[in-house]
């Protein structure tokens, strides 16, 4: 990795005895799109606010472009931000809003006008300058907020759940638009969301937050295919968990209840563990599992859900654990499943992860 643009060095924020964020370490490369993903109260927004300067860290240091950010007040940080509800100034026109950061930086009137026009063109809102924010739709307001946060070419752009207020279709459209803007402008972005799908679609890397800490940082593929903690496996996508104890721990692999999988993190022999397997990695057949077959499970079909392009089967194992298996339509047609009938599940050891059960 090249010299990081943003470096979070062990930062934390404590309110009395409560840690809103703790031991946050992260390097963001120039031009990278990093998402903070986590449930509400997980510390992702607190961390973002510390970078923006609205919240002072109680531990650690932040560096931007190699320089310490801690002594610099919010208004001198040169970090653009898109707020959750846009925070467009309601008493100013769209052009005045976009012009505001330039004005604060003493840009001449003529240059301001030109740059504002450019910024509005960039977000596809040329000619909307004279309108008031309230005269625009939610998506348009979102774009104005983007233009305003980018017009002064900040080295870093922060976005705090910017699409939360939009409906699904518009949200998906705006996701693509933000990604294109990010690519074209080369801006470094930190994006906060609780929507894991959004994070998977948009990010170069995702930092998964839980209980004030980062659980795992990695590319969307890493997080989905190789989660290191049970929380990450559970939060991103759908996962089946089979609980037990870690057995036969050796190098890369281990077993839980005799089922083999890849080790997510170091585990001691006998430690409480789960085997995590994605529904689409399970193969379903009618009848009982063959005795002695590796990585296979027997159960009873509870529910069969038709999803158009795929089929989801909920299968109850002998101990009552419900497991869901997802199969593509073509594959599903080959094995007709009946509710109440016995079914056997099998999977490959390399598709399963063995994680600490906490």
């Amino acid at each position, binding site marked *: 990795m090249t010299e990081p643009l943003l470096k979070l060095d062990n930062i934390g924020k404590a309110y009395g005895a409560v840690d809103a964020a703790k031991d946050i370490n992260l390097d963001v490369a120039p031009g990278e799109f990093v998402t903070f993903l986590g449930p509400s109260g997980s510390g992702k927004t607190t961390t973002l606010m510390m970078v*923006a*300067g*609205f919240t002072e860290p109680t531990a650690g240091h932040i560096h931007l472009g190699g320089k310490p950010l801690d002594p610099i*007040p*919010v*208004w*001198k*940080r*040169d*970090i*653009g*931000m898109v*707020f*959750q*509800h846009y*925070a467009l*100034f*309601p*008493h100013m026109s769209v052009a005045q809003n976009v012009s*505001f*950061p330039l004005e*604060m*930086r003493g840009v001449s009137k003529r240059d301001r006008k030109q740059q504002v026009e450019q910024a509005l063109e960039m977000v596809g809102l040329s000619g909307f300058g004279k309108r*008031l924010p309230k005269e625009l739709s939610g998506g348009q307001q979102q774009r104005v907020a983007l233009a*305003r*946060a980018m017009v*002064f070419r900040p080295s870093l752009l922060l976005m705090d759940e910017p699409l939360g207020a939009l409906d699904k279709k518009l949200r998906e459209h705006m996701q693509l638009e933000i990604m294109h803007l990010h690519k074209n402008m080369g801006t470094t972005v930190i994006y906060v969301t609780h929507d894991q799908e959004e994070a998977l679609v948009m990010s170069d890397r995702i930092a998964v937050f839980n209980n004030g800490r980062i659980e795992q940082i990695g590319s969307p593929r890493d997080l989905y295919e190789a989660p290191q903690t049970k929380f990450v496996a559970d939060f991103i996508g759908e996962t089946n968990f089979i609980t037990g104890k870690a057995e036969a721990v050796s190098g890369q692999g281990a077993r839980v209840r005799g089922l083999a999988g890849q080790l997510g993190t170091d585990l001691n022999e006998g430690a409480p563990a789960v085997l995590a397997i994605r529904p689409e990695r399970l193969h379903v057949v009618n009848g009982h599992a063959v005795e002695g077959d590796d990585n296979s499970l027997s159960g009873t079909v509870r529910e069969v859900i038709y999803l158009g392009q795929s089929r989801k089967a909920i299968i109850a194992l002998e101990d009552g654990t419900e497991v869901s298996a997802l199969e593509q339509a073509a594959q599903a047609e080959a094995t007709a499943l009946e509710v109440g009938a016995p079914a056997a599940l099998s999977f490959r050891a390399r598709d399963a992860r063995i994680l600490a059960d906490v």
Partner: protein
Amino acid sequence: MTLKNRNLWLIAPAVTLIGVCFLYPVLWLLQRSVSEPVWGLQNYETVFGKAVYVGVLWNTASIAGATTLLCALIGFPVAYSMVHSRPWIRKLLIFVVLIPFWTSILVRSFAWLVILQRGGIINDLLIGIGLIAQPLDLVYNRFGVLLGMVQILLPFMVFPLFSVMARIDGSFFKAATNLGANPLRAFFRVYLPLTMPGLATGAMLVFIISLGYFITPEMLGGRGDTMIAQLIFQRIDEFGDWPLASALAIVLLVGTGLLFIVINSIFKLRGGRS
């Protein structure tokens, strides 16, 4: 016929009350002001022509203006603190602002007299600790009038401001600082304009109520602080001069009305934009 129209008779008592107790006397005053001693505008010519009366009109406007300005300057930080403090402090502040509001204006004006007069609490104290040798003139002048009026009218400024400020999203200020405005610029460019509806409502209330003030300037003011309501009283009480008093009353009413319309229209323009 809609439900709304069918129930129109419900406002009949209010209409009757205003018609009988307000409209009729006003029309009666209007008639007297233009018909006595002969039909014509001679009473209005006196009001706007004689230096004494013009002086009183000027007093009225300037006292009301100063009161409004002072209420805004004092009320703004009070309202701001009320919005941005913990619930119990907020309750306390609301209570403190409201208590004087529940006390009679007459009592409060007398209380100011006790506090401010030459042998009053403040002068006694200052002389007692040796800070001054001669008592200060704190009352029977413009200072006394403004002090009394500002104290009485402050709630009319604080509460509209409070209700507007309470609805201003904190992220506007954050956004302003994030975009490069230091706190002072963020305040003047973003926060202050957003409080305008409250400031305008409060200012209009305070100014219009001040215009017709009588008891406070009468008790705490000096010769040079006579306001229009006092003059009206004087004309009737001392001289039985109903025609001129009527003309003064109509001038006050029309002036207030015009002001209301002007402020309202400016504000509607802004309101439409914000």
